[in-house]
Each structure stands twice: as structure tokens, then as C-alpha cells.
């Protein structure tokens, strides 16, 4: 099974390709506010380097938020378009959950601004705390009270050090737990602030 993996829900841009659960191509870098510029060229590069054409993917795996308002919508719009045009299945994965993988107990964090964070807490296949917004004070308390959890994310805004996520690996890891979108055309991002 051929999977195209896309994410731009936070400050990074990630494009990956997997065949039968093995990553054969990955590209991931910081592209804050330039994701719309680079996403399509990066997909083109992936297609060229892997020799798999867009119409031949069986599945698109895409980040759905929470995260950057514009960022989430860039990858999702492109993923929806490819899915609708090619008939590939579309699976959406939490932009927090993708920070870890199925082998880990972890807390994933993204700066939501105004002294708040997006937080999701996961233990292997289980969701311990569904993605939500908490005040940074609450987040710090949560981290303190759960020392057995690894903490992922760019945590400079909390004056903490978080582990750097492996986005493409994380997304692929969780993909078998996620249901495909029944109607990709009407798939919506998760913003949590609406």
C-alpha cells in the first residue's frame, strides 16, 4: 500500500511516502509562514524521487490540527484535493499525536498563544487526554504530576525543553488506528479555538 504523508499544521512542513508501512521518502523542515509556497514543490519532488504518481497513492495521511490557523489548512486543502481527484483514502491525524508514536507515553504541546497551550496526552494506543487547550500554568502542573511521560514540542515559550518530534514516523505509526474520512470533500480541520 502506497501512502502520501503531508503535514504543515505547526511551524514545519513535512512530506513523506511509505510503501507497506516502510518510509521510502521523507522531507521535513521549518517553513513557518512559507508552507503554502513550498508544499506543492515538495510533493512534486517526492513524486519524482519515488516514481509514484499522485494518482497511484492508496492513501493520504494528513495533519488536521490543532496548530497554526493557516498552516493546518494548507496541507489539508491539498490532501483533500488529491484524495477527491485520485480516489485515494484520506486519513487525518492529530497534530499533537503525531509528535510521538505507538511505543511511547507522551505529552504533546504546541503554543496556542495568550499564555495557553494545545495539549494532547497519549499512552501507546490510548488517548489519555483528548486534544484540548489549557493555560500554561495548568500545563506545567500536568507535566510536573506526570514525570513518567515524555514531553514533545518546541517548549521555549514555557522555558522548558521538549523532545523534537519525528512527524512522518509518528503519523505513519498511528495511521492504522485511524478511520478513513467518509467524505473527504467535507473534512474539516481541528482548531479548538472556534
Amino acid at each position: 500500500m502506497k501512502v502520501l504523508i503531508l503535514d504543515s499544521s505547526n511551524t514545519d512542513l513535512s512530506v513523506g511516502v511509505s510503501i507497506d508501512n516502510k518510509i521510502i521518502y521523507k522531507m521535513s523542515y521549518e517553513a513557518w509562514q512559507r508552507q503554502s509556497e513550498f508544499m506543492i514543490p515538495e510533493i512534486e519532488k517526492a513524486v519524482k524521487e519515488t516514481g509514484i504518481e499522485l494518482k497511484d497513492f492508496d492513501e493520504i495521511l494528513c495533519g488536521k490540527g490543532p496548530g497554526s490557523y493557516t498552516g493546518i489548512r494548507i496541507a489539508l486543502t491539498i490532501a483533500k484535493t488529491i484524495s477527491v481527484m485520485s480516489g485515494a483514502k484520506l486519513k487525518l491525524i492529530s497534530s499533537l499525536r503525531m509528535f510521538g508514536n505507538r511505543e511511547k507515553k507522551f505529552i504533546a504541546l504546541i503554543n496556542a498563544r495568550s499564555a495557553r497551550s494545545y495539549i494532547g496526552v497519549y499512552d501507546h494506543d490510548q488517548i489519555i487526554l483528548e486534544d484540548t487547550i489549557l493555560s500554561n500554568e495548568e500545563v506545567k502542573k500536568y507535566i510536573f504530576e506526570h514525570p513518567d511521560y515524555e514531553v514533545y514540542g518546541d517548549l521555549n515559550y514555557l522555558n522548558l525543553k521538549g523532545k523534537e518530534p519525528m512527524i512522518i514516523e509518528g503519523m505513519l505509526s498511528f495511521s492504522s488506528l485511524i478511520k478513513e474520512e467518509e467524505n473527504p470533500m467535507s473534512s474539516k480541520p481541528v482548531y479548538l479555538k472556534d
Partner: protein
Amino acid sequence: MEVRYVSNSLEDTKKLALMIGKNLFRGSVISLNGDLGAGKTTFTQSLALSLGIEDKVSSPTFNILKCYFDGSMPFYHIDAYRLEDGTNANIGLEEVIEGDGVCVIEWGQFIKEMVFEPLDIQIKILDNNSREFVITSNFSKYDVIMEDLKEICR
């Protein structure tokens, strides 16, 4: 802390903006308020100049947000006039307000909940060519700016 400055010409306004502009840093937020035609955009243009931005800074009333990346740091110019009733305000503006550059918001009072720790500037029209700027800081990060301003303000 609060200082007042009376501008009697475009030159005076520019002088004030340059004085503030040279002390701006990544994460600075300026909330500009004052009647239509008070001089919010005019002031913003000189601020942009102080960051080395050469692109013409125009009013973003119809765009809501304009971004300038050709200066010494990113410069974000928001006009919140059309966001007054709170609808359409939820478009991720907080990411540039509490972001990696300088953010100036005309009519900041209209999106108060989103305007993170701003330096407040209220502009009053005195007459055709005169304006009073009231600059209020509630955050120590703007202390350097406020100290400097004492030189030209009362």
C-alpha cells in the same frame, strides 16, 4: 507608565516613530487607537522605515493583515477596524501578534483579547496639523522605549 507627545507636523510624527522604532524587538506589539484620520497608518509607515522596510506600507483595512519580510525583522501590520463586532476575528492573528517580529495593530481595542501585552498608543486630533500621542506601557519589556521617549516627551 505614560508619556505624552505633541506632534505639530508629519515630521514630528516621524521623529516619534523612529525613536520608538529603533528600540523595537521581536515580540513587540503596538496597539494604535484614535479616530479615523488620526494618523495611525502614517505613524506605522515611519515605524516600518525604522526597521529598514522599503516596501510601501499602506493601510490594510481591506486585507486585515499585511506582512513585510524585507526589514531587519518580520513586520506585521493589522487593521482591526473591520473586526469590531468580533466576527471573522478568529483567523489566527494571535500567531503574528505573539510572533517572531514586530506587530502593529490599528484599532487594537477592537480585538483586545488577542492583543498580547501591547505598548498602547492613543492618538488625538488637536487640529489640522497637530496630534497628541499618549503612550502607555504596562510591561517592563518596553522600559527602554519609555526611557528614551522621556527625552522628547513630557
